[in-house]
């Protein structure tokens, strides 16, 4: 497709969206310009309030350390500087922790999506003895909050020799019974005729799963993956308990230990916060629509 065509499609889409939004405005607040101005003002105030901490942190990160410790002036008066970033990137394990977090989050996401999809396929499209019982157990497992298991789970990991290992951080996080049910509900809606036709053609379950069920479920798989990834990237409690060696710490855990290391180096603290926040914010800006949709569909836990 030519670039001009894509631009044209984009423009039409944008126009369409604008028209939809205008209709929405007419339907929800009506034609009064005062009502519109009021709603817009409320939005500006709320969004402003929500952005203040991030903007304030960002500005501080570009200040000289000496100025950061002075009573607040919004913009730097001693000039902008990258000092804090240089120091943080040079002296701390920040990049190592980010790498650990990325590795852990990717492994958790891949494993969770794979084993949940397989289990959902088994519950939805195959018959085996004990299926009902297993489904019931999975349902019960949803009610078990992982947080209360930290003590026995840590003990178990000690026995298995998985303390301070990537496997130790990742494996307990891949059990996601809620996701199994979200996926099962989606697999249930796949037209049965399609699967039967493939079976008649001699396709085994494994082929069915990989060549029909998974490709048809791309949208829900992406939604589940996004949700799991955000959760794993931000998870604090379990990685905090299972790691003691800074070399294996994930970003949230490592970053939570830097207070004492830096003392009251506010500019440096803000610089590390900014670097840590950046990856997910960039991903969000790129895939906003998918992420919004993914969180909204999976967030309800299949309710």
């Amino acid at each position, binding site marked *: 497709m030519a670039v001009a065509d894509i631009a044209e499609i984009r423009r039409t889409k944008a126009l369409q969206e604008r028209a939809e939004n205008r*209709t929405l405005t007419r339907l929800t607040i009506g034609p009064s310009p005062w009502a519109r101005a009021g*709603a817009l003002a409320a939005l500006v105030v709320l969004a402003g309030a929500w952005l203040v901490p991030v903007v304030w942190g960002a500005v*501080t990160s570009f200040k000289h350390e000496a100025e950061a410790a002075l*009573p607040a002036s919004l913009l730097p008066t001693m000039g902008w500087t990258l000092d804090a970033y240089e120091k943080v990137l040079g002296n701390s394990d920040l990049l190592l922790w980010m790498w650990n977090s990325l590795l852990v989050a990717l492994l958790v996401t891949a494993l969770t999506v794979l084993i949940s999809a397989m289990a959902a396929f088994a519950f939805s499209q195959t018959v085996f003895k004990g299926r009902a019982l297993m489904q019931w157990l999975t349902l019960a497992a949803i*009610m078990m909050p992982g947080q209360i298991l930290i003590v026995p789970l840590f003990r178990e990991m000690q026995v298995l020799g998985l303390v301070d290992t990537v496997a130790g951080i990742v494996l307990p996080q891949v059990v996601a019974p809620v996701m199994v049910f979200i996926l099962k509900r989606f697999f249930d*809606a796949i037209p049965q005729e399609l699967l*039967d036709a493939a079976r008649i053609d001699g396709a085994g379950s494994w082929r069915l799963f990989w060549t029909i069920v998974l490709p048809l479920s*791309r949208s829900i798989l992406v939604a589940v993956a996004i949700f799991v990834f955000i959760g794993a990237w931000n998870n604090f409690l379990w990685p905090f308990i299972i790691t003691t060696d800074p070399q294996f710490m994930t970003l949230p855990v490592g970053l939570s230990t830097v207070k004492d290391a830096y003392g009251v180096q506010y500019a440096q603290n803000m610089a590390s916060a900014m670097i840590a926040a950046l990856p997910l914010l960039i991903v969000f800006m790129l895939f906003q629509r998918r992420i919004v949709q993914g969180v909204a569909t999976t967030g309800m836990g*299949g309710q």
Partner: protein
Amino acid sequence: MTVSNTGVTAPAGPALPDRGTPAERPGARAATSRKSMRERDRSGYLFVAPFAVATGLFLVVPTLYGLWMSFTNQSLTGAGSEFIGFANYLEAFSDPQVWQTLWHTVWFTILSTVPLVLVALVMALLVHTGLPGQWVWRMSFFAPYLLTSAVVWHLSNWMFQPDIGLLDTWITGLGLDPLGWLTDENVAMFSIAGVTVWWTVGFNFLLYLAALQGIPAQQYEAATIDGAGGWRRLFSITLPQLRTITGVIVVLQLLASLKVFDQIYMLTAGGPNGSTRPILEYIYDTGFTNYRLGYASAISYVFFALILVFTLVRLLPARKEA
């Protein structure tokens, strides 16, 4: 099935229209042939095996192991694991720390849940007006949710700094006395709840927004023709339609708030004077700082009983509909 009932949100994407359960569909032939096709298929075990093994190892085993531990005096140092009956539970029920930290958790849950639902609702209603700048509004409200707890801690700790922090600067600018945001026993929990609202409200906002998008436009059209104004439409169409989702969001939020740990541990470490310490931190302290694994397990199960009540409340309405 409680969890997989047809609910408020449809599966994402247009790839597959929700066609209801297979049995309801036209073409009943499919149902019979499906059964026979499936019965030949014994591969279910293989597909469910990885999930079953993981669940067994990392959920069932620790659950049972923890239950057993709670009846012993096991210690992290490895010493002692004698069966001591209900001694840990008796101690837990008479331990003022358990009740105090449990109350902190409940107090935080109340303080955070109310604004986390109401603010999210207001945000979603405002964004759903379709006013220009959709991208900016969504980004501003949801972005904090993507920050990891340690970043939230750094940012808010900096806002809360005595004298040089932004909040104190503003407050003194208004001629008021600076507040001990995290150091005053009467203020700290409110500060933590405030941070939590800022951090996680975007999630509930998205759930509300998705629900709002599901309200049919015809209803608004009809109401407009009948002469209903903007407020009238809000109160007689929009809000009643949001009743179900609000129930779901409230219960999900209660469950999430009860598990509070990260932000409190980082912002105040349970202080000042233990006035914000949640039950999860007490469990952590008992198990990993005082090495009393058996006792920590017992407190975990007391806490679990509380969570279970809320979980069952969550599942009940779903069962009624099914």
